[in-house]
């Protein structure tokens, strides 16, 4: 079993977002970076499957060197080796094309990633990679069991859940409760230092989309407080003032 887990390097969920350079760049000052929370679920399940099947797990990141601590963390959690495609990804198609390029060279049985990154929230990279490789893709996957080369998947659909069986290879976008997040232990952290991290240059591509400018939402007006004993008047305000009823 050859497993590839793709991770993003993103601001922590509690990070305060602001921009610099005339609103063209994220202000990284004081922002802590983490492995994307959904990718972290994918990684955890990938490690479990690797351990059950005696396979190998490669972690892949498309991004710059400042992600290396997060890549080392993934190695400490249980990945065997890592590849970093040295680029500043600003576009889903670009990122997917890099992943697909690596995947074509190594023919993985299972490609796992989070359902979406928490910076651009697109949720399209797994679908793009799947189609580029001619392999089925599913998301958001909440349960993944393997029996030989047959996978049983439970995934969320609009207002419910679908269970299906399908043969590998597959590309999956993951979310909880597919596995519990794993915390690296001391031994993991030690061995991670010497595990291979290969840095490769991206394949060239026409630019598809490019972010130009970032903006913050307009500040929220003051909250109108309604006394508890007068709660019913809220309904009237929602109808006549906010006009949402």
């Amino acid at each position: 079993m050859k497993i590839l887990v793709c991770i993003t390097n993103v601001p922590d969920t509690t990070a305060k977002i602001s921009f610099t350079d005339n609103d063209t760049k994220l202000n990284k000052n004081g922002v802590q970076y983490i492995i994307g929370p959904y990718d972290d679920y994918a990684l955890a399940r990938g490690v479990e499957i690797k351990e059950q099947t005696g396979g190998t797990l490669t972690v892949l990141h498309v991004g710059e060197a400042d992600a290396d601590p997060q890549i080392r963390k993934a190695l400490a959690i249980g990945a065997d080796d890592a590849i970093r495609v040295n680029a500043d990804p600003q576009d889903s198609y670009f990122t997917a094309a890099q992943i697909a390029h690596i995947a074509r060279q190594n023919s993985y049985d299972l490609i796992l990633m989070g359902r979406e990154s928490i910076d651009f929230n697109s949720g399209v990279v797994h679908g793009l990679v799947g189609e580029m490789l001619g392999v089925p893709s599913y998301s958001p996957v909440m349960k993944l069991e393997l029996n030989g080369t047959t996978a049983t998947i439970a995934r969320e659909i609009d207002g419910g859940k679908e269970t299906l069986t399908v043969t590998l290879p597959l590309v999956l976008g993951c979310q909880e409760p597919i596995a519990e997040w794993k915390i690296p232990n001391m031994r993991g952290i030690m061995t991670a230092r010497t595990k291979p991290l290969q840095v490769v240059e991206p394949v060239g591509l026409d630019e598809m989309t490019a972010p130009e400018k970032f903006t913050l939402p307009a500040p929220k007006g003051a909250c109108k407080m309604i006394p508890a004993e007068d709660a019913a008047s809220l309904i009237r305000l929602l109808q006549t003032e906010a006009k949402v009823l």
Partner: protein
Amino acid sequence: MSVLIFVELDNGNIKKTSLEAIAYGASVASQTGSTATVLAIGQADNSELEKAGHYGASKVLHASDEHLAHENALAYSDVLFQAATKEGSKIIILSKSGLGDAVAARAAARLKAGVVSGVTELPQIDGAFKVTRSIYTGKAFATTEIKSDVKVLVIRKNAIEVDEAAISGSAAIVETFASSRRDSDYQAQVTNVEKASSELSLTEADIIVSGGRGMKGADHWQPLLDLASALGAATGCSKPVSDLDWRPHHEHIGQTGIKVAPNLYIACGISGAIQHLAGVNGSKCIVVINKDPEAPFFKAADYGIVGDVFEILPKLTEAAKALR
């Protein structure tokens, strides 16, 4: 060259978010001097599909082959690819959902198209083609230029204001769309589907009543359900609530759950942690009911009531019933 809009059907009806996508596509078509064509996959009556015309579409391609009856993102993306190729469409619009993102992604890969998901407004077209999208889970927006020849836009709810009262256009022409079938899209065996059929879906809902740990337990949800039913609202919850199995996982809203953008979000006994706010900050109007006046959610709210949810909810339900 028409703008192509992929719509989702629910029991033979065009979903509300898809009607928005049609209006959005029609507006882009008029900006670019072309027409809007709808692609509908699955079973639906012509009388329903003709409605696309009221929202500005001139034509509906209806792919109703038996093998397309069950929702299948892989097969649907192939049909979208075929329709886009036949129509010569350079701009493709979908509404954001699990299905929309999957279909958009797979079709974009084949069309070699730039794809932007989470678009919040109509595009600016002046030589360059620019869209605004929501990023950092609602904490910011990015203006993004789409440079590729074919462009795929996945739009968020409320990306365009649809005035139902002013809907006028004539009926759209409905054509059967015959597509070829890729066997590789039918490898999977769907063994089980659990769907709460009567339930209003959270991404479609105009009003959501949502509960947090302050609701105390699964057995205490009735007052919240009563308000939701009086308002015709969908119900949601915070992460701990679904973690504790008080409510099903698909109701979980926030950073790691569903992102919603209703007109009205009523939060009952939810503290307003940043990860929860991330899922609701697209809402037009937020009401917070919490016994703690210091709860962070009040800072993100339009209306607030400090008090016990179990006292407040029945009062609101009564007042809401009186509205009807």
